[in-house]
């Protein structure tokens, strides 16, 4: 299951995106070290999804996006799909497709022109489903699953892709507390096992500081802060960019827990 290519770094330099006449991303420069876990946070509409989509090559942009060692050109098509797997914020769920078949799609960048899946393809799909406790759902149609079950199936497809870079755009939005932790812990385990580079976006500030080793704050299309969770998840920055009152706590291992407080009239 391991990828022998070794960890891979990712970098945006001077990346800007205009959508519908608006500047959605404004010259972003960000480098994600090989094997790190970087999470992009920011208020709604900040441009997080757009930034992640530039990695997948599905949004027109200026500047350069690099996946792999310095001086490599932007990969395309199948090569990109072998380097980078994506869990989109709003996945398209095909009607009637069974969970196993859906997860198996992750193998497609590794297959040539073939019309049946190899035993290896099936094995690795089964292994991932098993690991996410989705085996009992194998024969269910994906569109018959609950929101959280679906989201785990989409994560499964990305893991089946076995890429050195894993991109997760809000993979937790429908998950209950236990499954949030389970998925994040699984990603952490796999990262250690396979030397993955993980890039994500998360709204939940309470967990983000315990998993990411680097946090980038995006607001209105600009990168406004970037660094270790303890430096970026501060009451001051949270108040400035989210407009909420939060208390942060850094434990001995450097993990940050954020508690948001309800605003009460004085």
């Amino acid at each position, binding site marked *: 299951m391991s990828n022998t290519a070794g960890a891979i770094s990712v970098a945006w330099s001077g990346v800007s995106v205009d959508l519908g006449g608006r500047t959605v991303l404004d010259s972003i420069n960000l480098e994600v070290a090989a094997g790190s876990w970087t999470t992009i946070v920011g208020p709604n509409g900040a441009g997080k999804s757009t930034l992640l*989509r530039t990695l*997948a*090559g*599905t949004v027109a942009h200026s500047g350069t996006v690099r996946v792999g060692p310095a001086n490599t050109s932007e990969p395309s*098509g*199948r*090569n*990109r*799909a*072998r380097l*980078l*797997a*994506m869990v*989109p914020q709003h*996945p*398209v*769920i*095909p*009607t*009637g*497709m*069974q969970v*196993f*078949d*859906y997860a*198996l*799609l*992750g193998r*497609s*960048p590794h*297959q040539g*022109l*073939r*019309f*049946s*899946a190899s035993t290896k393809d*099936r*094995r690795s*799909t*089964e292994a991932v*489903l098993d690991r996410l406790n989705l*085996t*009992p*759902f*194998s*024969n269910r*149609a994906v569109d018959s699953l609950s929101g959280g079950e679906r989201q785990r199936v989409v994560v499964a497809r990305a893991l089946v*892709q076995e890429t050195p870079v894993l991109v997760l755009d809000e993979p937790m939005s429908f998950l209950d507390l236990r499954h949030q932790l389970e998925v994040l812990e699984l990603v952490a385990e796999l990262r250690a096992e396979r030397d993955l580079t993980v890039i994500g976006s998360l709204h939940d500030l309470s967990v983000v500081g315990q998993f990411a080793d680097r946090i980038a704050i995006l607001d209105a299309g600009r990168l406004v802060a970037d660094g270790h969770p303890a430096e970026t998840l501060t009451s001051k920055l949270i108040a400035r960019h989210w407009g909420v009152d939060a208390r942060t706590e850094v434990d001995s291992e450097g993990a940050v827990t954020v508690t948001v407080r309800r605003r009460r009239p004085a």
Partner: protein
Amino acid sequence: MTSKVDRLNSGGGGQSLLGIRWLLAGVGAVLISAAVSVASGPVSIPLGQVARELLDHLPLLEVDSSLSAADRAIIWDLRAPRVVLGLLVGALLAGSGAAYQGVFRNPLADPYLLGIAAGAGLGATIAIVAELRDVLGLVDPVPLVAFAGALVAVAAAGTLSVRRGQIGSPTTLILAGVAVANFFTAIQTFVQQQNSETLQQIFAWILGRLSTAGWTEVQLLIPYAAVSVVGLVLAIGPLDVLAVGDEEASTLGLRPRAARRAVLVVASLGAAAAVAVSGLIGFVGLVVPHAVRLVVGTSHRRVIPLSLLFGAAFLTLADVVSRTVQAPAELPIGVITAFIGAPFFLVILRRQVGS
């Protein structure tokens, strides 16, 4: 906790077993429908003897069918070509229907979409009206001109939906197809009205029929059928990936627009060739893939091969019915496909709703 039974029923193992069982059922359906079709007709030849005669023609097998020379001639010169034609047309219609439905992510997409029916109709009308048979001599010109008409229509729809090198969305393509179809139908109606004495011949063509003069039609169809079937089988992987939409398909390493175009080309080629030799036989391309999906799920690894097989068997049986219910007269096969296809489909649909 996962129970042992759950595990046995789930995952890849169970899936591929299900697939293999249905694949064998499909092959069986093709063989049985072919034998039944060869056995039925004005001169009755017992099914057992037909089966033995067919087995005898397989390599390495020596089976004595004890048939007379006349019966052998009926089988090989009259009935077999028609059966093979029915198998090919049925497979092409159902296979291309499954591909169209996958490409457009719409279960109601039809192999005659994108102007194929209208283009072929115009071609056939022109060939009939202009009495091209007299010009060309031996070869029946109707299928050739119908085929050309179908390809011109699809090409026109494809070209019109491309702008400044950008391929349009599936919707643009369908709308272009509708416009092209209307335009071709308008011309066809005009030509037809100018030559009302040929109306009956034109309508007979439009209602669809499987009539053969020896192996000529089969020989005409085989090269296109081969290219199309191979193409459809190669399209299985891309079709499954296209199901998650263009953006995700490209994150899975597929170039969605190029893939969609390639699949449409092979599917249209097959549908156009089928329509050229058989006229417009409705329902097969819609109902067979749909029934298959209801039974085995939507993965094209199963939908494409099973649509090809069951489409072939279904059309062959429909042909048997069309030849026998009003013998010696023949009902148009398009009437039969709708007549037995619709109830059959409703039964499957109801069983599915029930479970």
